[in-house]
């Protein structure tokens, strides 16, 4: 796979993961008062790091963000473990990461367009 594709792939995988995480957070917040509900989280950065550290060519489109239920969070009296403030914090972090990916993507497109302009003249 060429280098150009791999950067776009990386950004795409990242945006997909942030999308999924945003959905998980929305799900957690809407179940704030649901008794017995355990919060869900998305694992992506760890999988990505493991993939990037491994030797040889990696296919980034193969990395799938995983939804999981963390077991160690303290549970409230109604069996629910969602903390509103923590979810808002996660959402802010997620938004910032998403913004970074989007900016990188537009930067990359601008680069490609520049190359095409030079070729056309």
């Amino acid at each position, binding site marked *: 796979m060429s280098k150009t594709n791999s950067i776009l792939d990386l950004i795409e995988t990242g945006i997909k993961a942030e999308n999924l995480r945003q959905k998980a957070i929305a799900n957690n917040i809407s179940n704030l008062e649901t008794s017995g509900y355990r919060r869900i989280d998305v694992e992506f*950065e760890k999988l990505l790091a493991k993939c990037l550290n491994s030797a040889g060519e990696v296919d980034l489109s193969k990395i799938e963000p995983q939804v999981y239920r963390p077991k160690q969070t303290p549970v409230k009296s109604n069996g629910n473990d969602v*903390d509103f*403030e*923590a979810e*808002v*914090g996660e959402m*802010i*972090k997620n938004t*910032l990461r998403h*913004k*970074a990916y989007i*900016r*990188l993507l*537009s*930067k990359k497109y601008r680069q490609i367009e520049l190359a095409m302009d030079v070729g056309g003249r």
Partner: protein
Amino acid sequence: MEVDNVFDPIDITISGLRAQGKQMEIISSNVANARTTDAGRGEPYRRLEAVFKSDGDIEGVKIDKILTDMSDFLKVFDPGNPHADEDGYVAMPNVNLPVEMMNLNIATRMYQANVAVLRRYQQMVETTLELLR
């Protein structure tokens, strides 16, 4: 703790928000039980007090433990009360409403301060992201 240090300030302010949320819970328990003469242990309700703790130099805050205030109960003359002693006095909880109102104000302001830091830090990161435009 997570690896990405860029987001540490966010985790720290969130820990502040959570601690103040818990503090609010304790204040509301104190205010709600300001006239509870029977807290189930044969004595009136004792007011609760949160102890905040930090684990390191740059670390979030957390509620270490919730202590009960061991100061004396207030004696109120009320002979008709079933909890009254032979002299007609009833032991009332050691909750002092003005103190609770003050703590409520402090907790609210602390919460607002943490939100202000959070918002400002978010703006800072967004300024950095502007460089990528």
